[in-house]
């Protein structure tokens, strides 16, 4: 991972759509989750931003959060446990 790399985690049908449970992205410039989502994820995930929850380093965050190098971003679908 370079200085600007972030790790992104996918679960459930999102992992199916991305063909991965974990991907590393190199960001040429600082981005919020919302900006990162539109540029890198929306095509693959096929559901709009409002469909997801996000956590960074295991804390819930909102889409305005500014991603930092080394962050682990989780893209979380609606839960269905139990």
């Amino acid at each position: 991972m370079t200085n600007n790399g972030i790790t992104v985690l996918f679960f459930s049908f999102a992992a199916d759509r991305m063909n991965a449970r974990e991907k590393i992205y190199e960001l040429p410039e600082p981005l919020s989750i919302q900006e990162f989502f539109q540029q890198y994820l929306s095509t693959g995930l096929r559901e709009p931003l409002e469909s997801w929850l996000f956590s960074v380093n295991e804390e819930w965050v909102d889409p305005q959060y500014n991603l930092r190098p080394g962050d682990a971003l989780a893209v979380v679908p609606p839960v269905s446990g139990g």
Partner: protein
Amino acid sequence: MVDYYLITEDSIDITEALTMIDDPATGAQAIFLGTVRDEYEGRKSLGLYYDAYPTMAQTHLKKIGEAMKQEFAISHVVIIHRIGELPVGAASVLVAVSAAHREAAFAAAKAGIDRVKSEVPIWKKEHWADGSSEWHDHPDHSGNVE
């Protein structure tokens, strides 16, 4: 006499959970055990696959248990969620609560399982009897197989 929160691929041991919530000051233990059913919305199923964000899910189980102890007059809480491939009949989730009295024990156990099902990052995929599979949280919902 401990609180205990676990995401695991191993089978759930209810006897061990009861030992953990055991306390001579408590007279009421309420336990909820969720198991995999052989059908969902009228369609035959062979079992479920549970995906999870394990570290975050386990942290969330602890948050739920601590909130239960704040809100209800209970002594101890155990919440265990099993993940991975589970056949019909297998226990997927356990919420066990001990309290001095039964009203608090029941109310806390009910609130606990409601929150586990709605808040914890865990997702299930149904393995239909026809051989297809489907995520419960999939946006296309019923009928879709991906």
